[in-house]
Every structure is written in structure tokens, then in C-alpha cells.
């Protein structure tokens, strides 16, 4: 005991001065101000969100699911487009963490009177919004908002471009069933060209090392996909227009919502043909790896892109997706609150 108390001058004990620094107590640190897309997320950042999500699921599992991390924070959800689960889960996520949440939709707000996006965003900032959760039918609208205000902006879906929180919750849900995604064959089926969910899923999945296969009628696949070259900015995906081939050996299948208005645009001959060729059903899932889950971002057209039996069967993780959506959004709100 006595010897340990001996005070030595720094010079005589060099071994003690050149100590290995302590592992920082903070662990990994979040430095992102806005969440606009997953295209610039590193694998490390995604891991941090997914780990934080697990901690949030614990809060949600409590008898009284409340924690005070965001007390005093004002969150505004600004939705220029319809939404059920995204808006409700953001609102709940904020409330579970003690934030005040204000919900605005374009109908019933000054947007109806012709207020511009920038003016609306600045007004919300002026009343004290610190986090702005935004959905807009125009791709890139959240970027414009982020440029013109000091609030942190979360993209809750913009046009065909990105839906990063859906991408993250899909990754979390997949991982909970499939485990490590490296080298796993994940098939994304449907209207990829018009799907912001698909784009965010593709970025996230390829960042975590999954082998992404995109499947759909050629008219509904974006032309740029599958042309990734060495050093190109596009993620590496395989394109397969035959669903029966695509699902062979799949570790998971992610179905997309078929937007009925695509029919009017002449991109599809008929719903019946689409569902015959591209419906994810139990017969097709039999070709996938045993236990492979099926995901759908909702809202579903049962009997079109997914069969009712599959959507409500054991392989379906659609309900888990909705539940995980709250936890993922809590994780992001928590991480962003602290970032300067």
C-alpha cells in the first residue's frame, strides 16, 4: 500500500507518463447535423444508429415507456404528403423521449395560402423548432429546408429520392432475423424506379455488405441500376427481371408498394399481369433460403405485390418493421439532439 502512494516526479517515471490513453467513456460519437439520405452514411454510423435503437427498444419495453433525454426539445413534423406510420412513429418517438411534438400538414396550414417552403421552415424555426421532420413530394425539398434554417432536418421521405429512416428501420429489422448482412442475398421486388424506400434500402444494405438483387418489370427499374463500375458512385446491385430466379437462395425479400397511378402512366399493362409475374407469395418464397423473412414498408396492396397469406404468415416481419420504426426514430432524435 505504502509504495503505491509514493509520489514520483514525472521525469523519473517515464513508463507512467507515456500511458496508453483510456478508452473514451463516450464510445463512438455522432457528428451529423441532418439526416437527409443514407448515401453518405458510413457503416460505422449505421452501426451506431442500430445499437442505439436496441437501447431504445428497451425503453419501449418498460411498463412506463418514458425517458427524459429530449426534455425541452421541440420537434415539428411537417408533412406535405400523406403518411400514417412515419408521422405517428416520429411523434411517438419524440414523446417517449420527453420532447414536445407539433404536427403540421400542408392542408390546414399556411401552405394552403401559398406560403413558400423556405418561409414555412423559417417560421417554424422562429417559434422554436429544433428538429424538423419533413416529408415532401419533391425530391430534394429537405435539402432546401436544411440550407435555410438552423434546425436539424430529418428527411421523412422526399419524392422518389430517399427515405432514410425507413432504410434504417429495414436494416434493423433484417438484422434482427438474418443476423450479419455481409454477403447475404437480399432481394428488393417491385416498383424500384419510383421508390424512395428502395433507394435508401439499397444504400444501407450495400454499405453493410449485403448482396442486393433488384427485381421488377423493366419499365419500373431505374435505368442507372446495375451499371455500377469500379469507382462509380452507384452502389453495386444485380438486376434480375425474373422474380422466380431472383428469389432463389435469397436470405430475405423486401417487397415494395405498387403505386396504382403507375398503371395510368402506361408503365404496366395490367394489375393482373403484374401480380402474376411479380407477386411475392408462399410458392415463390419456397425457393428462398429456409426462414427467409419478407418485409414491406406499407401500406400494402394485398393480392397485388404480396399475397395475403404471406403478409400475415410467419415469414412476415411487417409488424416488426412498424414497431422498430419508433425505436429507430428515437435513436436518431437522441443522437441528433447532442450533435452541434
Amino acid at each position, binding site marked *: 500500500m505504502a509504495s503505491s502512494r509514493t509520489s514520483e516526479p514525472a521525469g523519473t*517515471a517515464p513508463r507512467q507518463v507515456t500511458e496508453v490513453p483510456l*478508452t473514451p467513456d463516450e464510445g463512438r460519437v455522432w457528428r451529423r447535423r441532418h439526416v437527409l439520405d443514407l448515401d453518405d452514411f458510413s457503416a460505422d454510423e449505421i452501426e451506431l444508429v442500430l445499437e*442505439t435503437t436496441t*437501447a431504445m427498444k428497451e425503453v419501449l419495453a418498460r411498463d412506463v415507456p418514458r425517458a427524459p*433525454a429530449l426534455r425541452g426539445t421541440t420537434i415539428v413534423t411537417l408533412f406535405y404528403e400523406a403518411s400514417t406510420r412515419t408521422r405517428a412513429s416520429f411523434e411517438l418517438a419524440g414523446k417517449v423521449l420527453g420532447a414536445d411534438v407539433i404536427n403540421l400538414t400542408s392542408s390546414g396550414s399556411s401552405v394552403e395560402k401559398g406560403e413558400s417552403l423556405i418561409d414555412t421552415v423559417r417560421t417554424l424555426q422562429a417559434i422554436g423548432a429544433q428538429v424538423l421532420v419533413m416529408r415532401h413530394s419533391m425530391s430534394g425539398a429537405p435539402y432546401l429546408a436544411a440550407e435555410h434554417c438552423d434546425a436539424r432536418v430529418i428527411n421523412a421521405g422526399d419524392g422518389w429520392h430517399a427515405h432514410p429512416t425507413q432504410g434504417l428501420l429495414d436494416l434493423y429489422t433484417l438484422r434482427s432475423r438474418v443476423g450479419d448482412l455481409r454477403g447475404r442475398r437480399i432481394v428488393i421486388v417491385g416498383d424500384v424506379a419510383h421508390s424512395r424506400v428502395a433507394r435508401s434500402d439499397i444504400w444501407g444494405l450495400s454499405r453493410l455488405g449485403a448482396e442486393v438483387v433488384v427485381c421488377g418489370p423493366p419499365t419500373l427499374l431505374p435505368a442507372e441500376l446495375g451499371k455500377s463500375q469500379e469507382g462509380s458512385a452507384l452502389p453495386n446491385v444485380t438486376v434480375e427481371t425474373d422474380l422466380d430466379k431472383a428469389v432463389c437462395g435469397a436470405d430475405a425479400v423486401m417487397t415494395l408498394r405498387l403505386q396504382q397511378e403507375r398503371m395510368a402512366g402506361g408503365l404496366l399493362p395490367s394489375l393482373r399481369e403484374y401480380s402474376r409475374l411479380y407477386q411475392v407469395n408462399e410458392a415463390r418464397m419456397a425457393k428462398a433460403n429456409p426462414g427467409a423473412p419478407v418485409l414491406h414498408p406499407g401500406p400494402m396492396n394485398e393480392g397485388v405485390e404480396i399475397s395475403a397469406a404471406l403478409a400475415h404468415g410467419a415469414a412476415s416481419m411487417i409488424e416488426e418493421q412498424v414497431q422498430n420504426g419508433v425505436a429507430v426514430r428515437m435513436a436518431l432524435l437522441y443522437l441528433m*439532439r*447532442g*450533435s452541434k
Partner: protein
Amino acid sequence: MSERVLMTSEDMRRAVVRIAHEILEAHKGSKDLVLLGMHTRGVPLAHRLADAMEQIEGEAVPVGALDIGLYRDDLSTRGTSVQLTPGELPQDVSGKRLVLVDDVLFTGRSVRAALDAIIDIGRPQRIQLAVLIDRGHREVPIRPDYVGKNVPTARGDDVRVRLDETDGRDGVAIVRQEE
């Protein structure tokens, strides 16, 4: 800057065994006891205490881990969010006698946050606090029930607890800024 050794690995082992005895004596055995380590270094310390208690009493004591990230009162001033580690509770803590374990007790604010976190999780019959080092300078009315070593420090000092599990070796040292 100079780093001075406060406890060697042997000193730490003895302190842990002594605290284990003290806890068992105060609670007349290990019935209904739960050790709850605070992230990061409180968790391996809690496991060490549990191992020592099992050696003494022959009965395993459940150990949990607690992350207070959601309960910190400095979230808005820290600049960065603290990484959350999913907590692990061995069981429902309601009605249990809970001993919170941490490496260094300083301002007491972490313990205050931990108390909030515990009360949100359940309603233990009793909560006590065990720390390896009490370095003083409390900012809230909190005191430890079991202490490995009391160390008088200056506010600017840095007390470094190293554990084999997290830092590759055991030892407690103090770093004093040169005047």
C-alpha cells in the same frame, strides 16, 4: 503532467473483496441482492464484486448493467451524444436490494442520473452505492455506502481507473496538472 499510482492491481483486488464482505455483512447474506454496474467501468467492477461474493457465500449474485445516457443533465451542453449501450437487467428489480457500482464518485451527477433511470425501470426495495474511488467535490447530496479508497483531489485532477476488462490492465492513478 505527471501520473501517480493510487492503487495497484493487488490493492484493487483487496478493496473489492473487502467491499464484498461489507455488502454481505450489511445485508446479512446475498438474498434479494442485485448488483448494477454503471457503464463503462462499473460493469466489470460489479462482476468482480459478484464473483467475490459468490466465493464468500457460495451463492451467485445477479449482475446488471446500466447506461445513463438518456438521463444525463448535460446532454445539451456536451456537444455530442453519448453512445448508448443497451442495458442488461438480470430480472425485475422491483422489491430487490440494489447496489449501484461505479469506478469513481466525483460530482455525483452520474449517480443522480442513475437513480432516475432505476426508478423508471422498477421500484427496488433499497438502493445503495459502491464505488472504487471517492474523490470528493460533490455537487449533489449523494454519498456512497461502500468505498474502496477515499482520495483527496483537486478539481482539475484526473483520476484514471484502469481495468483489465476495458483497458488491458488494472490500476488506479491520478494525473495532476502542473502548476
